[in-house]
């Protein structure tokens, strides 16, 4: 591989990291509260609002069942409205966020639903408000599951970010297609794949490590 490709690979890696980081952040800001609400608003639950729960559930399912590449193209006018342009790395953050938010919402909903109902009852018996139950019981208790869910979301977004090249987003995926496929440079394709494997591996390991730091459920031998 010629030396002048290395800056290109490096730049593409940074672009991918930028897109994934921003869309994870924004997706969590939208999907986090949405997930908490979905987990607590069925009939008879803490924030009981069955109609809104059903409607939001349908919206989330619709967003999740749309293939990502179609989503990217379908929301181009919306992307232009938000980002000022529909082309480029920053613009790609819009569809990535819109794909990430419902996914993260479902992952966080699942993590929160894993929390033992007995803990909610105990907190209610203490006179906790629904807000206190969410902040002091549900989120801290679900934290290991939430971290693992976000890890999964980041890994999926690394994959999605490779597709935004189709609408002028840059990054590793775009580089792999343009150089590796269209210009017949298999070594670039290989480098891109290796970098992606390393990235995913790093994200997965970090996520698992952080989750285990939050997880106090397993007994540990600390000695006496």
């Amino acid at each position, binding site marked *: 591989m010629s030396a002048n490709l290395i800056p290109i690979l490096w730049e593409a890696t940074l672009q991918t990291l930028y897109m994934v980081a921003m869309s994870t952040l924004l997706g969590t800001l939208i999907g986090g509260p949405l997930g908490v609400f979905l987990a607590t608003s069925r009939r008879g639950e803490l924030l009981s609002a069955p109609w809104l729960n059903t409607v939001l559930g349908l919206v989330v399912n619709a967003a999740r069942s749309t293939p990502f590449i179609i989503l990217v193209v379908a929301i181009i006018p919306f992307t232009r409205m938000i980002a000022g342009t529909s082309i480029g790395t920053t613009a790609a953050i819009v569809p990535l966020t819109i794909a990430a938010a419902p996914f993260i919402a479902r992952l966080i909903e699942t993590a929160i639903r894993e929390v*033992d109902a*007995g*803990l909610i*009852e*105990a*907190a*209610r*018996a*203490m*006179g*906790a*408000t629904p807000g*206190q139950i969410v902040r*002091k*019981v549900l989120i*801290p*208790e679900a*934290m290991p599951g939430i971290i693992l869910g976000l890890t999964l979301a980041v890994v999926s977004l690394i994959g999605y970010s490779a597709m935004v090249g189709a609408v002028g987003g840059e990054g590793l995926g775009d580089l792999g297609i343009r150089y590796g496929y269209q210009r017949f440079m298999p070594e670039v394709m290989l480098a891109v794949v290796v970098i992606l494997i390393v990235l995913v591996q790093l994200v997965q390991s970090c996520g698992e490590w952080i989750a285990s730091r*939050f997880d*106090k*459920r*397993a*007994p*540990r031998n*600390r000695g006496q």
Partner: protein
Amino acid sequence: MAEPAISFQGVTRRYPQKGGSDVVALHDIWLDVPQGAITGIIGRSGAGKSTLLRMVNGLERPSSGKVIVNDHDVGAATGTALRRVRREVGMIFQHFNLLASRTVSENIALPLEIAGVDAAKIAPRAAELTERVGLTAQANRYPAELSGGQKQRVGIARALATGPRVLLSDEATSALDPDTTRQVLELLQAINRDLGLTILLITHEMAVVRDICSHVAVIEAGRIVETGETYDVFSKPAHATTRSFLTGVTGVAVPQFVAGQMREAPQGADAQAVVQITFIGAHATDPMLARLTAERGVGVNILAGAIEEIGARPFGSLIVGLPAARLDESQAFLEEHGLLTEVLGYVG
């Protein structure tokens, strides 16, 4: 009589069923729980005891009737008023319900945080409670590192954090082994004595009632079938459910070799009647059987027996064989002297 701590006044709880008749979980419950006492509600699973207990802190609401706790109508309270009442009522659970993400002292601090107690006052209060339940050495451990008994101690300390006047116990010892059960019950007793706390507990184990409850209510299919001081209910159980709960708890069962040959009616001249004799109160320690033999010449054949303490009063239970021919006379003699007798069957 002093004002009761908790008063159930005609409480009924119905659960509406889709397209059918309602399920009645509780039916017209009238029950006063005395201030500063330990009261047990005993019943089988599904009898409604859990629903009844949860009405005291508004986790369940009556369909009709009133639940009065410390002069507040809990059944009618909502929002802030209900949360204020809940902070005056502590609760402990069968499965402890501790937060896995919090240490012992952080778990104990939770109700204080929820009540909005000044952050500077939380740590000393949590430390005091941790010491009260004997877990100072474990204060920074997580629930996963504790035994069942230790977890329940954390539950108790947590329930006491906001200084409640009433403690509710939902089968608190049902998941524990006998030794640990005894220790937890002793702790509850000590708290009741030292803090004058009213304790209302539900259980399906008569042994728990025997060991710590001064008052008991027996619940069956959503109705209270018997209620009173534990000693009276144990010594003179009036309802079949109470009797079945008492089997195996108050002392004695008919030994297997006798039970195998028992009949409903005597056969032959030398048949023996198998009689359960209950000694209560002042007579529990009198040598009545010796007197029956000495004064009436009736031979008594002891088959099984035990004397135990219920509410610090002696309570004896014996199963004996008496000559069937002299049964009526012997029964009259024993009853005359304040003992309770019941014929279980005949042998021989």
